Each structure stands twice: as structure tokens, then as C-alpha cells.
């Protein structure tokens, strides 16, 4: 009784607000307006148990103490009217909230809007300098602006000095094209971008009237953004207005809700209007991204799943992973699945960690072991197995594109040797990356130098380095400013210049290449014609005259604490390997506008990883020992729809190499790769050029481009046809010397043969139903089993979902 009463109480707390806990607040809490053109978007929010849960701005009654100081606009904006202090009060039902409002700068001369702080944001928000409009590399209709205003000086020049001054005419602001065009008072290919009565138009007008001042170095920079509310608990059909404030380097704070660019991370859960009004349509968690002046912040929209409050299966777990995964599941009302059986666990952990199945005896031994810590022991043993080293050496060879089309075989082998040895030693990830980025000398003696053979030019190096180690795609910025992100072509060329002095020289031995650095040489920017100072992204430029190896500075920055994307990127790759869904999706797309599905969890796991000294094995152990990893793959009721929050283990098709090795293992017949020693596993291949129809059909990466998208992990019809009819399974079943021959030799009867086949491939015994079906189809349970029957039984196991998937 006690237990169920407690559950009932929990249900109430989680679902419905308890009377008295709810209140309303006016957001933001302290309001200060400066000058006549200033505005403040307000949101009147109902809070239940401390959580923002309903936007009541339109339903609440609001009033100001002194209307001569401030007025409330129809869109929920405060409009200053006179200098002084007053209060804003909102009432909703029995709840009431009051905030103080301060207004100054209304009397007297209004300051002229600044070019960078005031004018450019208006042009950006109106879309004038977007990649599809005047921000395109070639501009549009004769007007070329820098993409989203990254180059204010050039923009000022274009607007005020070119086109014979017709764009901006301070004498008659209304005749300036910069107003006439977006207002559609003259024909404009881009249509109407500004409304005549809007504060944005007023800003442009005031700037022109004030003499169209040029950008000044002293204009305050945007330091950070605040969003109100930061998170909100809502349901499908709800709406929520957001308010955004920017903080500037001069200490000033201002409402920029009307100027920011909004986006959502999952349009299936919520969408957002241009003015920051969020509409919730689905369930789960979605971040609203807010972009302003190259700064990004996010608001969290939580839309819990319906149904009973989740009861956590083993709340005893103290793992930081479990604490944060469970916290999120509770917020979203998602029930977690119970812990998977030993059969499921041993198969899963072998496949995910080492890309192989446990042997028959390993499975039997583990199942028979009764010690409480047998899973932890298995994990520790598994993490240092040679097959685990093979598996991860293969993964990093994917990442580093080991492909004999681009590097001589001898150098490839040497590079692979470096990678495999690093995995074996559990070399800290930052050391590993640093050794690659700063490698010099003979590729045969220092395998890591092969990186510079595979990626020969500074552009390829720039793109690969950022993509592989930071999950950042720079490619677009090679030819023009990145049309979707904030990177400019200048950023790109400055970064590329860090690689400008790498030189290659053919060595004496076959396949040998020497990697050296010169003390001079720069890459000119293609439009400016001159080189720009070498500079890592958003860092201080290096002195171009300095002859030191520029790659040292690059490696320091990439692996340094000031570059959080470095640790996040590798944590996300490893997390994705074990959980099938990255904390960030896509796996190698780490950017502020693509926040993780559980930010706290990402921070905590990354923090753990950095504190551990970039210890990959420790990170894996943290993941593998968590309840979250060890959960059953059967979802509990509502959690069926969960594909992101780890309420259950997400079943996935085996990677090509693990599937091929698994088939070989289960049948006892190894793969044969042309010109390679017999018995080699697919996970031991060094070169993506090794021919294999199976590996190609099941989507192994070609290793031509640094992109996680190279690996295809989805099932398709060609794969189904190959499993059913192809020779990978069928030829092995006919081949002599494997498991089938062994069963025949041992004269096993049908139940014994089934035990062996099922345990080897599925790590479990057949169910009574399966035994019954087999008996009905195959007859005779006692005599020894014929070869044809064994072939068909094996086939049925190896083509089943259960075999092809990890679950």
C-alpha cells in the first residue's frame, strides 16, 4: 500500500501542478529602456513547480503604474513614453506579478544609430545580406553585401560610396535606395523586406538622417544573448513567445527579439515564427536556436510524452550517465526499459566493442557465471582484447581515410601500424591527434606522417582537420563565405595558411615519402591576391614572418581547452558507436546551432573525458557500465516513439565488417580476401580498396571523404537479396571444415545441433516454440542430423533479424 501511495504522489507531482505551487512571472524580470526607439518584448509566463509551463501574455490582464512612462503595445512590446520609473503588473486568475520599469533618454536629442550595433542587424534580419540575396558571393542586382554582415567596413563602402551615393543620401533619407527598395516603393527583386511603420525602418531612417555614420571600432560588441524563458514545459498545440536580450561590451543590454534569426532542431516537435513565437506540435525535447551577431543561444522546449510517470528501473546507479539520462527521461515522462538479459548483454557488448561475436565457450561461461560483478569484469577484459584494438583501429582508419588510392601501400601500412599501436596503448586522444597534426619525417618510420600524404594540399587539410577532429564542415568557405554558417572565405584561407609550409619529398625506399616543413611560403587569398596571416578559427593571427612550424600552433589550438568542439567531437563519435544515436546528430556536425539532445549529459561526459586525460578506454568503460547502455531493446509503452533519449537500447543493423565476421565466426569458415593471408577478419583490413562485394553492399566507408555519412548503416533490398541468395552465406554453408562438419562428426541430434547453432550465432538457446517448429518441419529429433538440414537451419539463423541486428 505504501508503495502505491508513493507512486500516486509522484504521479501527481509530475503531471499536474499542485495548487499554490503555480505562479506567474513577467519576463524579463528587470526592464530598462533607453531612448525613444528602444522596445522590450515581454512574456507573462505561468510557472508550475518552478517550471515555465504556459505563455499567458495574451490572457493575463496587464497594466502599468504610470502610462506617461511606458505603454504596452499590441504585440506584447513595451514602448517608452517618458523618463522615469514605474511598474508593470500582470494578473492571471488569482496570481499576480509586478516588475519595475525604468525609462531614460526620452527627452533631448536621440543618439544616432550605430552602423554595426544598429543598422547591420536590421539588414541581416530583413534578409538583405543572406546567402540567397545580396550576401551571395556575386551579390544580387548589382549590390553585394558581406554575408550576414561579417565585414561592416566593406558593407559601409558599398552602401555609402558606390552607386553614386544613390543607396544612401543623407540629405533626403526617403530617397535612399536602402529604404526605397526594401519598402517596395521602387521595384525590388527581393520583394518587401521592411514595413513602413516598423521600428526597423525607423532605425534605418534615423541612421541616414544622422549622417549615415561609418562603423567605428569603438561600437560595442555583442557578448552574449539571454533568452526568456530558457526552458518551457508544453504540450502539442501550445504556443510560447520568446524574448531575447543582447548584452554588449559597454555593459548595455537591449531587447533584440525582433532582430534575431530563430530556428528549431526538430521541426517534428516544434516550429518557430520569425518573431519568436514557438508552436509545439509533437512530443520530446526540441531546442529553439537563436542567432544574432554570430552569437547563438538556445531555449529548450520540453513536450512530455503522455501516460504514467516513469518509474526508474534501478535507481541505484550512481553513474553520471544514468543520473542525467534518467533525469531527462523523467522530464519527458518516458519509461525506461529494464536491464537486458545476460544473453543479450554478452552479444551486444562484444559486437559494439570488438565487432565480433563471443565464442560458444565464452557465452556458456558467462551465462554460467553467478558473480555479481560479472558484467564489469567482462567489460574490463573486453576493452583490452586484440579484437577490440582491431575494431577501433579500423574505425580511426575510416576517420583518417586509409585508402591505397591516395597513399602508397607501404606508407599506408605504416600509418595503420601507428594507429593500431596508439589504440593498443590507449594513447590519450589529444596526444594521438597532436602526433598526427605535427608529424614529420619518413612515412615508413613515422606512420602518422601518412596523414600529409593522404591529404596533400592545404585546403584538403583544412577541411579534413576541422571535420575529423572538431565535427566542423568548412568546405563551403573554400570558394565563398559559408552560406549557412558564420565562416568566411577569409577564415578559411587563414586557416589553410597554417598548412602552407608542409612539403613532401619522395624517399629512397619503395612507397616512402618524407614530410617536411619549409620556413617560407604562403597561400594567397584568391580575391585579394595576397596571403592573409595564418590564423586558427577565431584565434589571434600568427606572425607571418615567424619561421616556426605553424602546425604546432594549430595542434595547440585544436587539442586545447579553448576548443570545446575537440573533446565533444570524439565523445560524440564514441557515444554514437555504443548508443546508435549520437548526443549530437549527425555524428560529425558539432555546432552551436545544432545542440546536443541532452546538453547537461554532453557537458558531463565531455568533462569526465577531459578530466581523465582524454582516456578513450575510460570513456568506454563509463558508457558500458551504465544502465542506459545495458537496457533491454524492448521499449516500454510510450517509449516506443523515443528514438533520441536512450529509454531503451536502440537496435541497429550490424556494421558491414562485424556482420561479415559474425557470419564467418558462426559458420566457422573465414573470409578470403584477395592477396591477403587466410583467416584475416574484415575488421583487420587496413585498406578500403580491398575488394569485397559483401562489405560494399552493406555500406563500408569508401574512405574518400572525411564524413561519417560515408558509412551506410541502413538495411536495403540488395542486402536482403544477398543474404538470401548470395554466396557469402550459401557458399560458407557448403564449405567443408566448419561448424556444420563438426556437428556431423560429433553426431549431434537435432536439439543439440540447434543449441550449438543458436548459441554461436544468437548467444541464446532455442525457445520451445523454435524447437517445436524445427521438429515439425524437419522431423526426427533423435538421430544424427543430415548436412542439408544443418545448412537450412544455419541459413535461417544467419538471415534472421536477430542475427543481422545488434539488440
Amino acid at each position, binding site marked *: 500500500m505504501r508503495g502505491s501511495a508513493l507512486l500516486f504522489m509522484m504521479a501527481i507531482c509530475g503531471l499536474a501542478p499542485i495548487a499554490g505551487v503555480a505562479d506567474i512571472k513577467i519576463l524579463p524580470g528587470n526592464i530598462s529602456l533607453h531612448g525613444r526607439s528602444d522596445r522590450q518584448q515581454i512574456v507573462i509566463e505561468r510557472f508550475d513547480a518552478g517550471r515555465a509551463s504556459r505563455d499567458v501574455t495574451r490572457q493575463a490582464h496587464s497594466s502599468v503604474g504610470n502610462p506617461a512612462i511606458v505603454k504596452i503595445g499590441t504585440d506584447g512590446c513595451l514602448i517608452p513614453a517618458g523618463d522615469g520609473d514605474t511598474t508593470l503588473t500582470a494578473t492571471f486568475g488569482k496570481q499576480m506579478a509586478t516588475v519595475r520599469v525604468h525609462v531614460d533618454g526620452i527627452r533631448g536629442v536621440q543618439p544616432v544609430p550605430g552602423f554595426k550595433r544598429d543598422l547591420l542587424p536590421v539588414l541581416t534580419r530583413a534578409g538583405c545580406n543572406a546567402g540567397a540575396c545580396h550576401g551571395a558571393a556575386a551579390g544580387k542586382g548589382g549590390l553585394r553585401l558581406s554575408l550576414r554582415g561579417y565585414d561592416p567596413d566593406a558593407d559601409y563602402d558599398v552602401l555609402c560610396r558606390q552607386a553614386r551615393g544613390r543607396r544612401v543620401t543623407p540629405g533626403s533619407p526617403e530617397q535612399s535606395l536602402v529604404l526605397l527598395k526594401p519598402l517596395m516603393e521602387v521595384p525590388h527583386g527581393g520583394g518587401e523586406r521592411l514595413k513602413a511603420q516598423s521600428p526597423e525602418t525607423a532605425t534605418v531612417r534615423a541612421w541616414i538622417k544622422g549622417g549615415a555614420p561609418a562603423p567605428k571600432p569603438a561600437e560595442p560588441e555583442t557578448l552574449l544573448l539571454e533568452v526568456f524563458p530558457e526552458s518551457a514545459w508544453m504540450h502539442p498545440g501550445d504556443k510560447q513567445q520568446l524574448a531575447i536580450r543582447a548584452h554588449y561590451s559597454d555593459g548595455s543590454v537591449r531587447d533584440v527579439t525582433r532582430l534575431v534569426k530563430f530556428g528549431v532542431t526538430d521541426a517534428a516537435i516544434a516550429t518557430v515564427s520569425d518573431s519568436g513565437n514557438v508552436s509545439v506540435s509533437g512530443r520530446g525535447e526540441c531546442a529553439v536556436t537563436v542567432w544574432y551577431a554570430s552569437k547563438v543561444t538556445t531555449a529548450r522546449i520540453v513536450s512530455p510524452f503522455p501516460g504514467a510517470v516513469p518509474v526508474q528501473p534501478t535507481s541505484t546507479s550512481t553513474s553520471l550517465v544514468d543520473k542525467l539520462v534518467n533525469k531527462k527521461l523523467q522530464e519527458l515522462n518516458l519509461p525506461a526499459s529494464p536491464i537486458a538479459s545476460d544473453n543479450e548483454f554478452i552479444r551486444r557488448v562484444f559486437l559494439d566493442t570488438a565487432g565480433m561475436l563471443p565464442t560458444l565457450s565464452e557465452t556458456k561461461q558467462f551465462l554460467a557465471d553467478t558473480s555479481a560483478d560479472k558484467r564489469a569484469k567482462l567489460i574490463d577484459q573486453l576493452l583490452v582484447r586484440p579484437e577490440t584494438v582491431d575494431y577501433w583501429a579500423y574505425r580511426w582508419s575510416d576517420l583518417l581515410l586509409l585508402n591505397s588510392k591516395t597513399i602508397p601501400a607501404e606508407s599506408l601500412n605504416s600509418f595503420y601500424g601507428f594507429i593500431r599501436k596508439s589504440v593498443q596503448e590507449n594513447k590519450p586522444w589529444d596526444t594521438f591527434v597532436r602526433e598526427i597534426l605535427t608529424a614529420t619525417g619518413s612515412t615508413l618510420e613515422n606512420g602518422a606522417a601518412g596523414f600529409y600524404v593522404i591529404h596533400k594540399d592545404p585546403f584538403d587539410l583544412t577541411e579534413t582537420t576541422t571535420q575529423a577532429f572538431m565535427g566542423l564542415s568548412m568546405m563551403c568557405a573554400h570558394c565563398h563565405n559559408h552560406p*549557412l554558417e558564420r565562416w568566411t572565405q577569409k577564415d578559411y584561407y587563414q586557416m589553410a595558411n597554417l598548412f602552407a609550409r608542409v612539403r613532401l619529398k619522395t624517399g629512397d625506399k619503395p612507397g616512402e615519402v618524407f614530410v617536411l616543413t619549409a620556413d617560407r611560403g604562403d597561400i594567397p587569398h584568391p580575391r585579394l591576391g595576397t596571403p592573409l596571416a595564418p590564423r586558427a578559427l577565431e584565434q589571434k593571427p600568427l606572425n607571418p614572418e615567424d619561421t616556426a612550424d605553424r602546425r604546432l600552433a594549430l595542434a595547440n589550438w585544436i587539442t586545447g581547452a579553448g576548443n570545446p568542439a575537440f573533446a565533444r567531437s570524439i565523445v560524440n563519435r564514441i557515444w554514437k558507436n555504443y548508443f546508435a544515436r549520437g548526443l549530437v546528430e549527425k555524428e560529425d556536425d558539432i555546432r552551436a546551432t545544432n545542440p546536443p539532445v541532452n546538453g547537461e549529459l554532453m557537458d558531463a561526459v565531455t568533462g569526465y573525458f577531459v578530466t581523465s586525460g582524454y582516456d578513450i578506454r575510460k570513456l568506454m568503460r563509463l558508457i558500458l557500465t551504465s544502465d542506459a547502455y545495458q537496457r533491454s*531493446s524492448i521499449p516500454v509503452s510510450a517509449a516506443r516513439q523515443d528514438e533520441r533519449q536512450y529509454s531503451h537500447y536502440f537496435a541497429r543493423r550490424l556494421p558491414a565488417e562485424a556482420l561479415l565476421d559474425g557470419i564467418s565466426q558462426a559458420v566457422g569458415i573465414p573470409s578470403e580476401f584477395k592477396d591477403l593471408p587466410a583467416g584475416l577478419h574484415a575488421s583487420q583490413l587496413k585498406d578500403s580498396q580491398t575488394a569485397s562485394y559483401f562489405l560494399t553492399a552493406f555500406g563500408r566507408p569508401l574512405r574518400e571523404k572525411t564524413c561519417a555519412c560515408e558509412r551506410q548503416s541502413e538495411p*536495403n533490398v540488395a542486402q536482403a*537479396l544477398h543474404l538470401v*541468395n548470395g554466396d557469402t552465406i550459401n557458399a560458407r554453408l557448403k564449405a567443408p571444415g566448419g561448424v556444420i562438419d563438426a556437428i556431423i562428426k560429433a553426431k549431434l541430434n537435432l536439439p543439440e545441433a540447434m543449441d550449438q547453432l543458436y548459441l554461436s550465432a544468437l548467444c541464446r538457446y532455442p525457445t520451445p516454440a523454435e524447437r517445436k517448429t524445427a521438429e515439425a518441419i524437419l522431423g526426427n529429433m533423435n538421430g544424427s542430423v543430415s548436412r542439408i538440414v544443418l545448412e537450412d537451419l544455419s541459413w535461417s539463423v544467419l538471415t534472421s533479424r536477430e542475427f543481422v*541486428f545488434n539488440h
Partner: protein
Amino acid sequence: MFRLDADKPVTLCDGITRRDFLHAGSLSAAALGFGLTLPQMLALEAKAEKPKQEMNCIFLFLLGAPSQMDTWDMKPDAPSEIRGPFKPIITNVAGIQISEIFPRMAKHADKYSIIRSAYHTQAAVHDIGHQMMQTGHLFSPGLEYPNFGSALQYLSKSSADVPAHVLMPRPIGPTGGNLPHGQTAGFLGKRYDPFVLNADPSSPEFHVQDLLPPDYIGAVRSERRKKLRDSVDNAVKVFEGSSEAALMDENFHQAFTMMSSPRAREAFDLSSEPKHIREKYGMNKFGQSCLLARRMVERGVRYVTINMFETVFNEITWDIHGSAPFTPIDAYKSLCGPWFDNGYSSLIEELTERGLYKNTIVVASGEFGRTPKINPAGGRDHWPACWSMIMGGGPIKGGQVVGSSDAIGGYPVDRPVSPQDFAATLYTALGVSLESTMPGPSGRPIPVCDYGSRPVTELLS
């Protein structure tokens, strides 16, 4: 209701397909045996709307984006840095001229129309154009729209022994934006993904791999294997929540269906085409894909996508930036033009001869246009503000030019056609109502076309 072997009962409604009728017809004896009298059958048939002819579509995706000034919107009077190296030629329709790189196509201008005012307003990223031109929508994170073919398959509920929707030779690979390309079923779920050929039909050893079991596996063993496999698949419940596992089930179902269908095997069997026919299409992956598409449509495939190229890097494509790793402009005359001219012209010739062109829409378009002015590398860069595309077949009227561009091909001057308008045109031509919706994420109905999309009515007869 008509399909005695269907998984789920088919409700009688306006959406009933012709195939269901045929199916019911072939099973009518059995139906009678189940208690339906012939008059009842006829009455049921009369209640349903008379089925229209099913429309098919072959979409030739011109990956890389052809230059409008060098293909179907020549500017012979513009300065040389605009007009480019090629000359216009006359066609069999008075007043319509196209580029000299398409001599065969020029003889068929009555069979297709040219839209010279296609445009989009998004960023000039290949991937974005791929999305919009193959789904009619710009994607948002978490909301991937279905390819036209997947939507057609979903809305027409067609089920046959051949795949409803085929993509060949291979899906679009990396093109720089790292965004989805609009060639999957998106939110409709992977069971509506196209069947992907994943092979080069011009290769001498081309065949669909593994379409038949090894010869020592006869029907009896095959059946026994399937039954044993079903028993394993039914043993554990771990896949209830996995959409990937559901997809694998669907793949196996499709694989078994194709294996037992002579029609499906014939659809892929290029070796039964005479040599002179194969050569007419061009012995390259695009030409042979066009021939394969004709065989497929003949055998019941509803929608075929042909990617003329797969990536814009280190391959000759329409993406003529002029310098490596992209393509120089001359490649239009040496490769892109001839490949397209032979593949496309042979396709519409043969579809016409075989009576298939009247119910097969053939579309050819890239993802955007190219800059009017030739760049310093001698090429042209990305330009979404204006391009040309080709539509013909089915209810599409031929022999017309729709819309026009300004003197340099920079912007549409009349009848601008957005990807959304194009989508509305294609759906209308395929017989799909623009009011149709599809179940989006969490079951939310999502209209096939964005609000405000209008079909190009002058193309529709």
C-alpha cells in the same frame, strides 16, 4: 476487400486503384466462391469511380546543374562572356532553338516543353536544390520530406511484384552541403524508400546481384528455409520499437516477392535488348539507365529517378566551375551533351513508339542554374535565380516554351516557376490531388505541396 491476399482489408473508396480491379478480376471466380455473386461484383465495381489511367514518371536528375545559357535558353546576342562557346540550332518547332550540344533532342521539340523561368530563392548549395526539386519542399532539421516517387507510392497505395519506385544507378553522393538530397521517403518511413539499383547498367557484367537462389536450392528447400527463418524472427520481441528492423522485414518481403516474379526479373534484364537499341541510348551509365527505365515502366514501375551523375567532385558533371575538382565548360560538348542527347532522345522515341509516352511523364532538371557571366576559370558558378528545365509526356503539352529570362539569363522576366510550382505541376500531372496530405512526424498531416504552390496550367492538357 478486393485483394483476397492483401495484408489489410482495402476499403472501398475513391482511392481504389486500377490494379485492385485487375486483381479482383483475376480472382473473381474465387470471389464468387466466397459468396459474392456476379451482379454484386458488378455493383461494387460500378460504385467505385472509373479508374483513370495510371501516370508514371521518369525523372532525369541532371546533377551538378546545367547552365541555362549553354543548353535550353541560349543568348546568342549577348556579349561573349555571357553567351558562352556554343551555338543555337533550330528544332522541329518553329521559333524554338536549343543548344547545338543536343542535335537529336532538337528533332523532338514537339514532344516536350521547356521552362525557362525556373528559380529558387534559397542558398546556392547543391543539396538544397536537390531537396526542393525532388520533394517540392525546403527541409528543416527533423523534417525531411519524401521524394515525389515515395509520395506517389504512398498516396497511390500501389503494391505490385515490381518496386513502385526505383532509383538508379546510385543515390546522390556528397555534393558539399552535407544535407539530405531528397531521394528518400523522409518522414513517410523507409518502407517507401526507392529500390536503389546500386550498379552501373553500362558495365558488361551488369545484372541485379542475387536475384535468384543458388541452383541447388529448389522450391521445397527454399520454402523450408523461409519457414525456419520465420520461426526465429517470431521468437523474440526485441524489435518491436525498431523502425530499422521493420525496414529489414520490408526488404526481405520485397526480396522474396521479386525473386518469385518473372516480371521483376525481366525489368532488370538489359541483356535481352538488341545491341543496336542499347547503342542508340549510349553505352554509358546514363544512357543504359534510360533504357532500363523504359523496361521498368513497361513492367509496372511507377516512378524512376535517374541520377545522371553522383557527385560533383572529381567527376565530369554539369557543375562547370571551370577548374578542378570541378568540370570545364567544354565537357558539355564532349560528354554531358551527348550522353543526355542520346539517352533522353532514345527514351522519348521508344516510349512514344511503344505507346507509353502518353502515360509517362519525363522530367529533366538540375538543382539550379549557373551564373550568366563566365568566371575567370572559364566556367560558370551556382545561380539559383534562373534556370531551364524540360517536361513532357503524359498530360504535359509539348512544343512550348514556358516563361522567359532576361537578356543574359539572370532572372525570370515572366512566369517564374518555383520548385513548389513545379511540384504542384508534377503532382497534378500524376493525378495526385494537391489537397492530399501525408502523415508527418507524430501523425501530423502534411500537405503534398506547400501552401500557395500553383501548377503551371499551360503545361497541362
